[in-house]
């Protein structure tokens, strides 16, 4: 008996050790193209350094690994790409930056995210990649110092199921303003039982979905206020257009697939699945959803369109999609000079070379803000380009200036409470305006 027990215990120990080793190597996915694994025999390295890229987007992990391999094969410079698990980027970055082999290339999500990492950012103002940008708007600058360079532009709006819209008796041309949108949505709701579908997918306020409203939708009142005041950031938001924010939020929650009180537990997947199942016409989300909505057994480009989020402010006839970026590349200042040079060469190659731009457009589905960019097959992205070409003004992403994650959470909680009827709209206004001021004050301290 004792022998058996000892054996079992020994086995447990061995297993737990093995489990540790196993999870250690699988939790992060280091690229195969590590140092010396396959140095290209024919070419000589152009730089002595190496590149370590901590990637933010798990969807593009495979494509980055492949691109890194291709670069190593071409130049002999080892490139390691590690992708942080979804939602774990900050923690992973913090841990990795503390190591001696720290990432040479990482990303921040705008001015607020930069606050954490400013001391680590190499000034990119003299770099080749900076000269390749199509617009200075895509550089994360303070004064003359360039801390980060945007590498992907994305758009969001209201993704519309054109087929269902036609079934309800409308076309895209019928929706040119908030009033139109409201009329169509409320008409669909009044005939919900007869049509068999609702106007909007559930505006879920679970953590997997609430960013669509507390961040992306909240961008619109912020944007229009900035426009009116002619500013690009502020320490004290006035909330000029909060009534319009209320109007669109009311529209979302009252014309949805479920009761407003159920929204607090609805997830992002719920919302997407409702859209895929044809239970609703409108789905507020971004160009990154394209891959999830199209393909085998799903929609084709003919079924889908993205329309601007109208909230009844400004020149709605000329309002475009919300287009911008929250993905900025930063180069680690603390890395050795060789590594910095190797990293600069690598990112420049990614956005200028035939192979690099092709991989970013086709494999990753990115629209990149660089002169030599190639066209992406993404329908929503193409629509954004068409709208801009037709003279519509894209709504910029001002949510990167929102004072903190805490502010967004406060607004999100208040929105949820308002939807469920446990809170009133004053709660949202107070979280929006007062919360902004108090968070901005904390940031300044």
């Amino acid at each position, binding site marked *: 008996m004792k022998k058996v027990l000892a054996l079992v215990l020994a086995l447990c120990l061995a297993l737990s050790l093995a489990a540790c080793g196993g999870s250690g190597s699988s939790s992060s996915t280091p690229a195969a193209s590590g140092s010396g694994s396959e140095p290209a025999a024919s070419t000589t390295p152009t730089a002595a350094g190496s590149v370590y890229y901590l990637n933010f987007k798990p969807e593009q992990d495979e494509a980055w690994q492949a691109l890194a391999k291709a670069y190593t094969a071409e130049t002999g410079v080892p490139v390691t790409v590690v992708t942080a698990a979804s939602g774990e980027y900050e923690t992973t970055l913090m841990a990795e930056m503390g190591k001696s082999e720290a990432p040479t290339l990482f990303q921040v999500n705008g001015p607020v995210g930069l*606050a954490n990492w400013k001391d680590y950012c190499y000034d990119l103002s003299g770099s080749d990649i900076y000269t390749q940008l199509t617009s200075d708007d895509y550089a994360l600058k303070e004064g003359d110092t360039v801390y980060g360079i945007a590498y992907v532009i994305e758009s969001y709006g209201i993704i519309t199921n054109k087929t269902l819209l036609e079934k309800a008796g409308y076309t895209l041309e019928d929706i040119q303003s908030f009033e139109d949108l409201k009329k169509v949505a409320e008409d669909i709701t009044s005939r919900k039982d007869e049509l068999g579908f609702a106007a909007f997918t559930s505006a879920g306020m679970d953590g997997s979905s609430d960013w669509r409203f507390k961040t992306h939708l909240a961008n619109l009142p912020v944007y229009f206020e900035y426009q009116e005041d002619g500013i690009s950031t502020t320490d004290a938001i006035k909330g000029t257009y909060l009534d319009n924010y209320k109007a669109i939020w009311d529209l979302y929650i009252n014309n949805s697939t479920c009761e407003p009180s159920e929204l607090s537990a609805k997830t992002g997947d719920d919302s997407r699945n409702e859209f895929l199942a044809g239970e609703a016409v409108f789905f507020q989300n971004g160009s990154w959803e394209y891959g999830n909505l199209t393909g085998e057994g799903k929609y084709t480009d003919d079924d889908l369109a993205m329309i601007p989020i109208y909230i009844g402010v400004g020149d709605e006839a000329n309002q475009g999609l919300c287009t911008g970026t929250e993905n900025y590349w930063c180069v680690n200042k603390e890395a050795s000079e060789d590594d910095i040079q190797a990293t600069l060469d690598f990112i420049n190659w990614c956005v200028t070379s035939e192979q690099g731009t092709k991989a970013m457009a086709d494999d990753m589905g990115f629209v990149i803000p660089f002169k030599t960019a190639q066209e992406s097959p993404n329908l929503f992205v193409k629509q954004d380009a068409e709208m801009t070409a037709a003279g519509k003004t894209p709504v910029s992403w001002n949510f990167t200036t929102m004072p903190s994650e805490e502010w967004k959470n406060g607004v999100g909680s208040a929105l949820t409470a308002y939807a469920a009827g446990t809170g009133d709209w004053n709660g949202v206004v107070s979280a929006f305006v007062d919360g902004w001021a108090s968070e901005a004050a904390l940031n300044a301290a």
Partner: protein
Amino acid sequence: MEKTLKKYFPLFVLPTLAAFIIGFIVPFAEGIYLSFCKFTTVGNASWVGVSNYVKAFSDATFRSAFWFTLGFTAVSTVLINVLAFAIALLLTRGIKGTNVFRTVFFMPNLIGGIVLGYIWQILINCVLSLVKQPLLQLNTAAGYWGLIILMCWQQVGYMMIIYIAGLQNVPGDLIEAAQIDGANPWQALVRIKLPMVMSSVTICLFLSLTNSFKLFDQNLSLTGGEPNHASEMLALNIYNTFYTRSGPQWKGIGQAKAVIFFVLVVAIALVQLRATRSREVQQ
């Protein structure tokens, strides 16, 4: 033999001691040092003195998290131990299927806290939605009682096992002697069994007290601190300060909160140990 043991004692202690120093003492000291610093990564900390502690104490969410934690710990510790002891008494009577029951009661403890949290979130939300109450995300009271139900469900089985072990160690002749002297079952329980299992009570109280006070996974997955930090416990508050705030100053504040938290847990545990130890009897 004694002499050889003494001679080689340092050699045998060395591996464990080294592991303890590397794995505990050093990070602990560094953690205390960092609580006085402003830092982004642990490598580049700059000293700022006690300002982190001042900010930690003046943080309203930290104070409310403290009271929420205290309220939760008090109720859950009592409930868990009373329930566990009652079930242990039932399952030491030799009724049919005792082993099956013990296994069943113990099982929830084998599931991880995060998983349990999400399962109970679905269950509780279903019930709340049926009775037309606001869901967990908006309902502090439901969050509080949900956490207590969840913790009881998970911990009662574990504490039950410890109590069963204790009860089985109560000598049969003592009980028999008491019965002959005319003690009724209640007197036998309070005067004989309870004093005899006091060492189990010490352990169970210690475990449930510190577990409840340090609760993190279940809190994160069941309520996530919603609505607006109202159901946030200390550990989650520290985590949120450290990770979801941006800007180097928050890391130090989070670290300071963690040190305060540590002192609190140690103090509470020591007081409890002293209080229950004194009631233990020698067999």
